[in-house]
């Protein structure tokens, strides 16, 4: 099927328009006098112009094929490419029950006034990444959530939705992109490599940065502080949900201190203990 497509594309690329064939088959120089006598010279000139235009358009189309992705369509693509490349580590391809998580996340977002936020949730069958988010296509976000992590904490849908809300802010506050960017990326996006060798260094750099961020370095204390403060601000007007969030952080703090499978959590999201401190009311000194 793919072979047929390639053959068809090659044929279409080589196909000439009627005007181009006409220009090739008729020698207008030989007919110059006849054309002059019949006042057809302007018609020939028009035809020559038209063929020139067609050839220029075709060349522009050929050059366009060598475009690197743009900022708009790069992130969703590279996120999925990273998910595909790490499928065997992230273990997202598994059979699972219908958790109904989409509804509870949408409900929480709506309660907080975060409307028209499209998202995809990708459950993982591994504890290596507890929760994480990557940008999707068209402003969408992709949330990764570890099922073993949820089970270890016995989290309910609201608690899971709050973890996803934290990840939403990490994207929204541009912390994710700040951490995975590379100098080559900005220089390549939207550029054209016609007559040059294609460079995939920026792709490799960004993929490596995704991996580093998710499995190793994580977010900074400053970024984590700002996310926690944002959560505090958003949930203040919903005291019940705020309390659930506070309790959730305590649960995670306890888990990461006692279960070696989640040791890395403190490095990726430093740290639940600090988050609890940042959220706790300051003690008054009398």
């Amino acid at each position, binding site marked *: *099927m*793919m072979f047929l497509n390639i053959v068809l594309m090659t044929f279409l690329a080589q196909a000439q328009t009627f005007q181009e064939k006409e220009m090739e088959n008729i020698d207008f120089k030989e007919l110059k006098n006849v054309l002059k006598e019949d006042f057809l010279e302007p018609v020939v000139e028009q035809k020559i112009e038209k063929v020139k235009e067609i050839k220029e358009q075709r060349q522009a189309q050929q050059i366009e*094929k*060598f*475009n*690197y*992705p743009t900022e708009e*369509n790069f992130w969703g*693509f590279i996120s*999925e*490419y990273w*998910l*595909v*490349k790490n*499928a065997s580590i992230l273990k*997202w*391809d*598994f*059979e699972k029950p219908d*958790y109904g*998580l*989409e*509804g509870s*996340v*949408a*409900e929480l*977002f*709506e309660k907080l006034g*975060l*409307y*028209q*936020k*499209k*998202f*995809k*949730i*990708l*459950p993982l069958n591994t504890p290596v990444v507890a929760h994480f988010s990557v940008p999707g296509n068209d402003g969408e976000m*992709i949330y990764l959530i570890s099922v073993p992590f949820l089970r270890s904490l016995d989290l309910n849908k609201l608690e899971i939705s709050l973890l996803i809300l934290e990840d939403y802010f990490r994207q929204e506050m541009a912390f994710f992109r700040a951490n995975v960017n590379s100098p080559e990326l900005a220089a390549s996006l939207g550029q054209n*490599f016609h007559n040059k060798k*294609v460079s*995939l260094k920026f*792709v490799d750099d960004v993929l490596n940065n995704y991996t580093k961020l998710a499995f190793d370095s994580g977010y900074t204390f400053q970024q984590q502080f700002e996310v926690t403060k944002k959560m505090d601000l958003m949930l203040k007007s919903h005291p019940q949900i705020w309390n659930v969030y506070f309790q959730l952080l305590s649960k995670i703090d306890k888990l990461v201190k006692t279960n070696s499978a989640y040791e890395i959590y403190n490095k990726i999201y430093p740290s639940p203990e600090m988050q609890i401190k940042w959220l706790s009311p300051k003690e008054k000194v009398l």
Partner: protein
Amino acid sequence: MNILKVIYLIGFVSFSSFAQETVGIFYYKNVFGHVHSKSDRTSTSLTNMSCGHPVKVVQYQLSTVKGWSLVSVGDVKGYVETRYLDQKRPDCFQNAHPKFFNALNLDLNELYYWGRLYDQYLDGESRIQ
């Protein structure tokens, strides 16, 4: 003359069977995807297709299973989620940046997993109340 009649007859018969068995030609709109053996995301993949691939829809929106259509792709007949089909040719990443995309040299394993990704996503959206 007789040959013309035969050609006309063959054309008519094939058009009639096409009209009876096909709702229309749709296009697959994710980067890659699978035609499933059952109307179930976990069912086995019969074949892999890429974005913009024409899909002959035999039954649009199955009455028995919500959100799935019965399709025919090449000589394979199977099931695809209806939301991944488009009546118009979609704007595909691989068509917009063909040389870049080809340079990535995706292997068969990656094509398979990329298609599976859309089977595993849980999609949602918050709406204005």
